[in-house]
């Protein structure tokens, strides 16, 4: 296997821009601005802080590339050589998705909440697929 190919239906593609917003190359999610008053418990706060400290632009660039590709072609093509990078990038995106929900920056309504759950689970499934390919 040279690459993992995952195909997505059109409704998924139409939601990609909301994820791309979370991949901007700057300190993200007002977690640090809003601090612990916004439903962030201490451990989650530290965890999000770790995202901000260790966020690497390479991860973000890969994320933007993957999501843009998904938006255009409806497919994610992840080369085997990029598995580790893709795993880290997907983890970063899940952190940001989680943070955005916690601080109410995104997906405040009921239908949007479903969208959050959908993406949060979908990204986890992608990670599981990649890990299965690695672990055998």
């Amino acid at each position, binding site marked *: 296997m040279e690459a993992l190919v995952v195909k997505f239906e059109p409704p998924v593609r139409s939601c990609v821009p909301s994820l791309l917003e979370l991949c901007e190359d700057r300190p993200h999610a007002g977690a640090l601005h809003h601090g612990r008053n916004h439903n962030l418990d201490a*451990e989650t706060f*530290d965890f999000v802080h*770790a*995202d901000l400290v260790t966020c690497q632009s390479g991860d973000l660039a890969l994320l933007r590339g993957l999501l843009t590709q998904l938006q255009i072609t409806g497919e994610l093509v992840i080369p085997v050589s990029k598995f*580790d990078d893709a*795993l*880290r990038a997907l*983890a970063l995106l899940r952190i940001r998705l989680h943070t955005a929900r916690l601080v109410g920056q995104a997906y405040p309504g009921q239908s949007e909440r479903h969208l959050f759950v959908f993406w949060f689970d979908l990204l986890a499934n992608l990670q*599981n697929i990649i890990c*299965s390919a690695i672990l055998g």
Partner: protein
Amino acid sequence: MHQSAPTATLEPVTQTQPPWCVIVLDDPISVMSYVVVAFMRVLGMKQPDAERHMLEVHEKGKSVVFSGEREPAEAYVQALLAWKLNARLQQAT
């Protein structure tokens, strides 16, 4: 009377510092299989060991994944943070 200067004998003092530990804490985001792969990649663990530590994090809230000198411990923490895991450096008491 000549009195020779007192000589001090220096005894080598060996201070054994407690080892530094790398602790990984549970988090609400990381997928279990992902944590296993991260432990294998960063810490060079075999899959069964990585799975055991992952389960310890999941069930007990944390796991000590390395114990030793400070310098490698710091490097491991940075590497685990780059994998978006909730890793901490702590000196054993």
